[in-house]
């Protein structure tokens, strides 16, 4: 698993010396609580949607900046979990689109291949398991963006279909269609012999 520096959202708060208003302890505590509750989830979601650990980390920080701004300036959402998820998904969506203009950008890579297989397995089992995982990840990464978002939100994040429809701003029928296509593609990758 990649090790990313844990950036507490409190460190993202604008310091009083820089012209910002010093955060009240209660406010800071609430934001830290939110980060503890959702930070890892946001990072994981960004990695699923972007596939690049360093970009995911950048976006995680971006998302927390927005959380802090929303906390201080905007109306507080009823459901912070849904709000944060929506911000993260939109940020990933924007990042994927802007990537058109960064064709030459190098990709970071900090996931060691050795961790892909279970410890204690025979070399043959390791090879087979590694091959299957690679096939699944390849298929997942090749999914069109919307299908990847829907699959990640439904099966990896556990949101319901109506919630995903709200988060992505699409019809529930579209969510089901994208989900079905994604599941079919991923199952085909699972069944395919190496």
């Amino acid at each position, binding site marked *: *698993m*990649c090790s990313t520096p844990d950036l507490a959202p409190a460190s993202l708060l604008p310091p009083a010396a820089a012209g910002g208003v010093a955060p009240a302890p209660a406010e800071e505590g609430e934001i830290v609580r939110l980060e503890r509750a959702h930070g890892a989830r946001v990072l994981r979601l960004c*990695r*699923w949607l*972007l*596939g*690049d650990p360093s970009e995911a980390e950048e976006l995680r920080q971006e998302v927390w900046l927005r959380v802090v701004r929303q906390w201080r300036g905007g109306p507080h959402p009823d459901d912070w979990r849904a709000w944060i998820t929506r911000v993260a998904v939109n940020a990933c969506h924007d990042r*994927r689109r802007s*990537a*058109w203009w960064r064709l030459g950008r190098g*990709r*970071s*890579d900090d*996931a*060691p*291949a050795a*961790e*892909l297989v279970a410890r204690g397995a025979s070399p043959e089992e390791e090879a087979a398991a*590694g091959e*299957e*995982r*690679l096939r*699944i*990840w*390849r298929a*997942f*990464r*090749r*999914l*069109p*963006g919307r299908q*990847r978002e829907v699959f*990640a939100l439904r*099966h*990896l994040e556990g949101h319901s*279909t109506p919630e995903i429809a709200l988060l992505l701003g699409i019809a529930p029928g579209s969510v*089901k269609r994208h*989900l*079905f296509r994604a*599941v*079919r593609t*991923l*199952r085909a990758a*699972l069944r395919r012999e190496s």
Partner: protein
Amino acid sequence: MSGCLGERALLRVLEREPARRAEAHLQACTACRARLRRLQDDLDHLTAVLHGPPPPLSALPEPARWRLGLPALALAAAAALALLPHGGPAPAPAGTPGATTALTDRVAAGLGAALEGGDAPWRGWSDEGAWNGGSGGAVAAEGDEVTALRAALHGARPCGADERMLFAVCDETALADWSPAVAGEEVGR
């Protein structure tokens, strides 16, 4: 068994929104129940793998955006190449402005040679007498037509006060629709 459920219907069952008919069928059909279990197992396995650490990015393909983007780029490049002119100047087809210009140039050269040879039917056209309704009047009218034709074809600018010349780049008839851009192109030739 006939009427077995498709993958989409099975997925709807897993999503807990099955059609009533599908539920009834599942209770009766062991094959569909087995397929439903397999679908659930596959989803569990996929979820477990994707929750685990990803393989190195070098082992993975670029995200789908590149696969969609490259054909679009190739198509755009092909379209741009098709629109670009190829190689040297191609022979202008008949009826194009280029062909018309070439024709008028040939006519002008022929007329100029005849004028210098002294046997031009409108000899003396530029003389004072010709302009005063002398014997060259009809010829002068013909010359006017040539000048007007040339001006019309070349889009020449109107002549200045002392620019009255037979094959000047200006037009004595002072065309109303004279265009500086076209005239400039002609003058620059």
